């Protein structure tokens, strides 16, 4: 009885510990993009116009992520230039499969070389649902020497059963593969089994005998003749010949079975940036500060409109965070319905002078981007950067709703008391 009580007590305590442990477990909500230094996210790749055509899909159903990115002219010295890049996606494992990807309309299965700073690129990634669940998916640009930089992520809900997933492929030699997931697996397992059986035979041939201490003593007594006999040698040589025969015979058979094979394909392609749109804007930042207690970035900039139409400031975006000028008539349609709401600042963009900048006019405007997102997205560690600077894109709109954008950036001062 006492033992039963003791066991029950231990069981209850164990259950309590496990239960408390489970309570503290939470699912991962992001992929570490906030852990990247702010200078990486604000001064390298600026994603914009990112759209997801679906947020709920079934297994085997496709969805598309499209958008553009600007490679910032004021590229940090600490980061390798985008000489070799690869367009990809961030996801928690292969919950979705990649069907196609394009950079400026060119197939992006391989990497691209020599992308140009200060230019824009258009991307498209087609993905397919594989494992049911709810996943956070990002477009991503990997830069050799710098690492991956993620665009704005969106939650995608996949319904159905993983068992229904299929990835049929037809090879260039005419082999019909019903499902890429299982291609070549049983053949590989069969060959592993052959080698394991041979290894097991060789090991058991020796391990079945008296092993360590008696063999060591016999060796000390100089009786090597008993430890390794002529029969052992004969069996060993026969096994060795068999192994060599299987290796080269199997190789020859595989060559005959698959006469047309290619080496692994890896390399870079060249892609031209998007054509330079007409840019009627010049921005000169005269002062920028980050108000630490107020969580507010304040930029004073001289903006010149050298075009023929008045231009209004519509949006400031950096590191996927968007500040929309709510006073602009185009504000309502500025954010696509599929864009993640958690990356749009509630406070918006506050301007000291929201009137359109007239053609030929140069105006000094104080731009105020205030939101807790600066902290939440971990974009304010200016004090830890070796060059305390900020960067981003400023979007303008003309009376017909046509957008233009320009880079904005420069040194920034952290301020620890309210100005």
């Amino acid at each position, binding site marked *: 009885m006492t033992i039963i009580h003791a066991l029950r007590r231990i069981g209850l305590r164990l259950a309590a510990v496990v239960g408390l442990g489970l309570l503290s477990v939470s699912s991962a909500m992001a992929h570490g993009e906030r852990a990247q230094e702010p200078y990486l996210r604000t001064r390298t790749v600026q994603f914009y116009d990112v759209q997801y055509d679906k947020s709920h899909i079934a297994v085997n159903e496709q969805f598309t992520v499209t958008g553009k990115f600007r490679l910032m002219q004021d590229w940090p010295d600490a980061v390798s230039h985008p000489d070799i890049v690869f367009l990809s996606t961030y996801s928690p494992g292969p919950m979705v499969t990649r069907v196609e990807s394009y950079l400026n309309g060119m197939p992006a299965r391989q990497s691209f070389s020599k992308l140009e700073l200060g230019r824009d690129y258009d991307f498209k990634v087609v993905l397919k649902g594989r494992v049911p669940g709810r996943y956070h998916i990002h477009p991503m640009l990997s830069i*050799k020497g710098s690492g991956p930089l993620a665009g704005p992520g969106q939650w995608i809900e996949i319904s159905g059963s993983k068992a229904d997933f299929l990835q049929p492929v037809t090879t260039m030699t005419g*082999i019909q593969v019903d499902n890429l997931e299982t291609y070549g697996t049983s053949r590989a397992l069969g060959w592993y089994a052959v080698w394991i059986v041979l290894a097991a035979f060789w090991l058991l041939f020796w391990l079945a005998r008296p092993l360590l201490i008696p063999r060591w003593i016999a060796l000390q007594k100089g009786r090597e003749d008993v430890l390794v006999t002529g029969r052992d040698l004969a069996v060993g040589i026969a096994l060795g010949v068999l192994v060599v025969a299987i290796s080269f015979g199997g190789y020859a058979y595989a060559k005959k079975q698959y006469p047309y094979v290619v080496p692994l394909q890896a390399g870079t392609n060249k892609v031209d940036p998007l054509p330079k749109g007409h840019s009627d804007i010049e921005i000169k930042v005269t002062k920028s500060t980050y108000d630490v207690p107020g969580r507010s970035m304040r930029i004073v900039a001289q903006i010149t409109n050298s075009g023929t139409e008045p231009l209004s400031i519509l949006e400031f975006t950096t590191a996927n965070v968007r500040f929309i000028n709510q006073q602009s008539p185009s504000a309502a349609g500025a954010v696509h319905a599929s864009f993640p709401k958690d990356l749009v600042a509630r406070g918006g963009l506050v301007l000291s002078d929201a009137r359109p900048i007239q053609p030929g006019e140069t105006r000094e405007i104080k731009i105020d981007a205030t939101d807790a997102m600066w902290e939440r997205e971990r974009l304010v560690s200016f004090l830890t950067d070796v060059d305390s600077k900020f960067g981003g894109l400023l979007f303008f709109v003309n009376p017909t709703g046509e957008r233009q954008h320009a880079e904005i950036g420069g040194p920034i001062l952290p301020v620890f008391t309210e100005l």
Partner: protein
Amino acid sequence: MMHTEILDPSGHRAPIESAKNQAADTVLGIAGFGPRAARASRMFDILVVVAVVLLFTGAIHLHTMLLAGDWDMFTDWKDRQYWPLVMPVVLVMFPAALQAVFWNYFRLPIGATVGATCLMLAVAITRPMQFVVWTDYPLNMVLPSQMIAGAIVMDVFLLIFRNGLFTAIFGGFAFAFLYYPSNYTILAPFYVPTSQQGMMASMADLIGYVYPRSATPEYIRIIERGTLRTFGDSASWVSALFSGFICIFMHFIWWKLGMVMSSAKFLPNNTKVMAMMGIKKTA
């Protein structure tokens, strides 16, 4: 080998004495083990075998992952130039050290096969668990290579030559040279060409593209260098030959390391050390 034959007056071998001699000529007989000692010794054998398997399954897998990593991890990393070159050089190390230990102390020519089997056991556990169960990648994306073929032949060379140096020269070379053909039989289907977005890709490339690895951009697979392309289709055999050459030296070094690591060394004590440890010298 010493034979002591006891003959009866008619010249025939005496049955009882013959049986005794036969028993004395076994390993247990030479060691002087009776039935109880033999049973205890067998139990010790089992414990050591279990310990060796557990220890070296972990150690060789860790060693391979640290030094070869993605080359063994992913099917679309098994390229024709560096995979047949790098992998045998990495894989031969532990088997060579184990050969030295098993052979020099016990005259067991199984060290390399033990190492190869331990690695096979490790990947048989880790690949399905890490990639299929935990992260949902298909198994054919993470097929490992095997070194059992080369390991058995290396053990056979040790059995023939009974010598570390010649085993390094012939066995080390054979270990590396057999690696490519014995693994090609497993992986050949993954080099069949297919078309993806108008570009040619092997099936292995396609698997790597279809199942995204966020932290593995395509450009880190760009490793092939121009000079070996001179040999066109035979680049892998050139790599296998060169790998065999490197493995000769690698085997030699790791054989020595195996011996060093399996030897107990004691530092001589002295009065200074004793004083530091608070031990007073007795009169």
